């Protein structure tokens, strides 16, 4: 890191903030701004959009000043975790919509468990069955949450 000229965390984070602020400004342009006395629905969001952009720029600047860097070293995102956990939740949503709660839990727990390298497929399967049994018992029969267990592929 001795040779690094910028802290990527600040530069990326700041640019994202500028993008969000700019997007807010563009979208809020359609809402009536009003006046200070009678603020329209666009007034506060536009204010926030400008502040967001300004702070984003300040964070980018901070990334170029070595003595203001955060402690610790930047970490790479774990693609395995992001893809695996996202896939498991997507599976839960799709299965919950079309197949029912039990298949949804089996998919959610089974897929997400495999994200950890220490879990074998058998462990993941057993865990999925156990959570499905316990989960249905607690949430459906115990707390009375409405979620069809099986819908048979609608």
């Amino acid at each position, binding site marked *: 890191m001795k040779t690094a000229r910028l802290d990527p965390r600040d530069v990326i984070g700041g640019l994202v903030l500028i993008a969000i602020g700019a997007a807010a400004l563009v979208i809020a342009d359609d*809402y009536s701004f009003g006046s200070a*006395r009678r603020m329209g*629905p666009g007034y506060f969001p536009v204010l926030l959009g400008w502040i967001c952009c300004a702070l984003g720029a300040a*964070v980018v600047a901070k990334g170029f000043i070595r003595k*203001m860097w955060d402690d610790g070293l930047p970490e790479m995102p774990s693609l395995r975790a992001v893809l695996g956990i*996202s896939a498991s*939740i997507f599976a839960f949503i799709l299965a919950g919509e079309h197949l029912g709660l039990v298949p949804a*839990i089996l998919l959610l727990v089974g897929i*997400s468990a495999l994200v950890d390298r220490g879990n074998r497929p058998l462990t993941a399967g057993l865990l999925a069955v156990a959570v499905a049994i316990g989960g249905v018992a607690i949430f459906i029969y115990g707390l009375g949450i409405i*979620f069809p267990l099986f819908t048979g592929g609608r």
Partner: protein
Amino acid sequence: MDVFDNLAAGFGIAFTLTNLGYSLLGVIVGNLIGVLPGIGPLAAISILLPITFGLEPSGALIMLAGIYYGAQYGGATTSILLNIPGVASHAVTCLDGYPMARQGRAGVAIFTSMMSSFIGACVGILIMMFFSPFMVRAALSFGPADYFAMMALGLIAASTLAQGSALKSIAMVILGLLIGMIGTDVQTGQQRFTGGIPELSDGVNIVAVATGLFGIADILANVNRPQGSIIARGAMSMRSMLPTMAEVRRCVAPILRGTGIGAVLGILPGTGGTIASFMSYAFEKKISKTPERFGKGTIEGIAAPEASNNSAAQTAFIPTLTLGVPGDAVMALMLGALIIFGIQPGPRFPAEHPDIFWSLIASFWIGNLLLVIINIPMIGIWTRLLLVPYRILYPAILFFVCIGVYSINNALFDVGLALVFGLLGYGMKLLNFEPAPLLLGYVLGPLMEEHLRRAMLLSRGDMMVFIDRPISASLLGLCAALLIWTVWSALRSSRRVHAQA
């Protein structure tokens, strides 16, 4: 005395069998979740929030509050045994708690933290009982400009005083405020930032935001990461937990000082348990005759911060309930829960819902007592539970998150939203942005906008109203002072680094 009549009535409600059951359930579940590494009170409350929605408001609040301070007690246990603070406000407890555990004195450390927590909490509740009516009277003279200034101070204090870069935290507050804008504008009915998605017209669900930022993001960050090893295994006997008389004497003054620091910082907006525990630890170290013992397993280093963060945890309810202005992210969640129950916290809340207000206070007494009683026999079970590896736990936690978020509106859309916030939270973690200010901004966003609009309408668009009113002027003055102090200390520390280089 009025207070005692009210409290007696409150105990009448809290002592019903169902409410006692909710309190017990809350503290046990909170305690359990506080002990589990990787889940702090914020995640615990946000994951369990949906479960309470089927209950009566007072029962639900009693259970939520139970989860909250149950997790507070539990968080200290992981700090001591694992050197992993369940939540930031226990980070200081690691400094002396973990060394004590390594010296084979984990039992004494846990017992001390429990007793200090209990004393801190008791004093905190007493202050809450007697100070709230005073606060209510003061709050009735608050105008919209004053509320706006109060919230601004809370947001600025929360982001400049907490750990991490103040600049980045303030940016997160603004991002939170922007996310709070999503939905239907209350005054004009205009849809804002919904992208035409009908599910967003009521705004982003608070449980989806909180479980995403704190539950899913934590899983993303902790999966495949090596776990800390546990020092003390198996059950602990009562005898091994008792400190010596000399140690008890050494603790008394630090507990009292910690409680005082915590109580004050709990009431102030934006400062909470974390700052209170750090400050009281630093204070004890400064005034100690033997500061070199701190960090090597001294008992005062546990007693002071634990008393401090628990007393702050209780007094933090004062501004949340009487002003409707939460001081930290946990309180913001509580506020969100109250609003979901159709209760608007504010100066009229104790008078309009005395049953809820006072039964909540009564349940604080009951819950804290329950915790002291159940914590001792439970520690053996919790430490064994810590042996369950994280790779088995997190898929189950993920299921709790999904079903919990779903159950609020019976909507799978919200589960997807939680995933979006989970990914956002993970990205923020990697880029070193704090999630707590975002949640605080998100909850306060719509309120701030409403008060700003009202203040401007009353003053006919004259910005001077913020300076003319003494309350708002002094609050905004404090905001400015905090900002100047933050910038100044950042510049000074960078100059010092420069001088060393």
